[in-house]
């Protein structure tokens, strides 16, 4: 699969920007640790989006200026953040009630694997010596009105992370509604995997060759 290196693909910033385009004005959003955090840097000008973090804050602002860090004000990745006017704090049971109760519009997560029907595997590789850690992943996956996944379509060794059925331990069943990858944006659901956007210069057939999941061109 070494020839995949020569295929056109979106950069991580471009994927983040592509996700940001789909987040509507007024949305309440939770961005997962890692890559999804970058979505905040690409929200179009004039769009007011409220960011929620599992550790009890809504209305999160950008990272503080150097020297202004307050480690009583952190995000789920435990990095220092700021609070926007209108933001507030609450305890953990309320914070996860916001998720489970369907009060978040969009959640963006990373993934090891996503299945054609939207099953998500993103908390454990199942390696026997791995130390398990789940955090809020399972609550986030099933809680938001829409769960988006942001990931490279292929692993470093070229295997598709969009699979017929996840082989890694599941985080949630049928919870992912859309994946944003370096090659394409694909809607997932009962009616299969519908491709709604492909990176410029890549054909639908070339995309289909990268994954065992049967795709439908829905552009």
């Amino acid at each position, binding site marked *: 699969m070494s020839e995949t290196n020569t295929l056109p693909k979106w950069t991580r910033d471009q994927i983040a920007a592509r996700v940001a385009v789909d987040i509507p004005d007024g949305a309440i959003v939770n961005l997962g640790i890692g890559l999804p955090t970058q979505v905040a840097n690409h929200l179009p000008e004039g769009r007011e989006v409220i960011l929620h973090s*599992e550790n009890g804050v809504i209305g999160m602002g950008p990272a503080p200026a150097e020297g202004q860090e307050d480690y009583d*004000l952190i995000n789920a990745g*435990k990095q220092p953040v700021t609070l926007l006017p209108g933001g507030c*704090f609450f305890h*953990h049971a309320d914070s*996860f009630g916001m998720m489970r109760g369907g009060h978040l519009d969009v959640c963006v997560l990373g993934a090891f694997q996503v299945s054609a029907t939207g099953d998500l595997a993103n908390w454990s590789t199942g390696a026997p010596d791995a130390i398990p850690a789940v955090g809020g992943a*399972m609550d986030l996956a099933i809680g938001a009105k829409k769960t988006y996944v942001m990931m490279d379509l292929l692993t470093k060794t070229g295997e598709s992370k969009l699979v017929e059925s996840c082989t890694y331990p599941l985080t949630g069943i049928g919870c992912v509604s859309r994946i944003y990858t370096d090659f394409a944006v694909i809607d997932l659901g009962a009616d299969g995997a519908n491709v709604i956007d492909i990176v410029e210069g890549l054909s639908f057939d070339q995309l289909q060759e990268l994954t065992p999941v049967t795709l439908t061109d829905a552009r």
Partner: protein
Amino acid sequence: MIDKISPSVQQALANIHDGATVMIGGFGGAGQPAELIDGLIEQGAKELVIVNNNAGNAEIGLAGLLKAGRVRKIICSFPRQADSYVFDELYRSGKLELELVPQGNLAERIRAAGAGIGAFFTPTGYGTQLAEGKETREINGRHYVLEYPIFADFALIKAEVGDRWGNLTYRKTARNFGPIMATAAKTTIASVHEIAELGAIDPETVVTPGIFVKHVVKVPRTATGPAGFKGA
């Protein structure tokens, strides 16, 4: 007269016994009651079951308690962190039992204990390894897992301001597990940075009503440090 103010950390922690289940507030460093944990290390209780979101950072606080060999079991959601090497080694060598709980289930099980709920059905974790062997039910077309409360003998939490009735306020995201843990333990011990006269805390801003708190102890204000991520 009701006076929950403890003169010292040592006195506040005096009754913690071997084998106790102890909830410890905090998410990473925020809300971690470092002085109370240091006091617990000094106090000497062992065979403890600890409930915390994480499993300690570097070698201070909760990681220090683990390193001192006082903990038999930890119930948490996210033990593995960039600086959780004390936990990692104890877990790998089989010296520490781990019950891994999705974070929202951890919070709700603690809340349920404090609110007198016998058990509850939650969609979180359905169909995953962490729900294996648990009772499930389909309700209105959705699948749920039955989860039970987590009770504790003691809760050690970090608050900001307290008064002699035990009313508490918190600071920013250091609030996290404090308010719910306070409700779920038989004895809740809160460290505060300021003790207010009764009535001086605006009643509209009290987060934890004193009914949930047994002891309040003042500790010096120190800035919370970074923890839980690469480079912390």
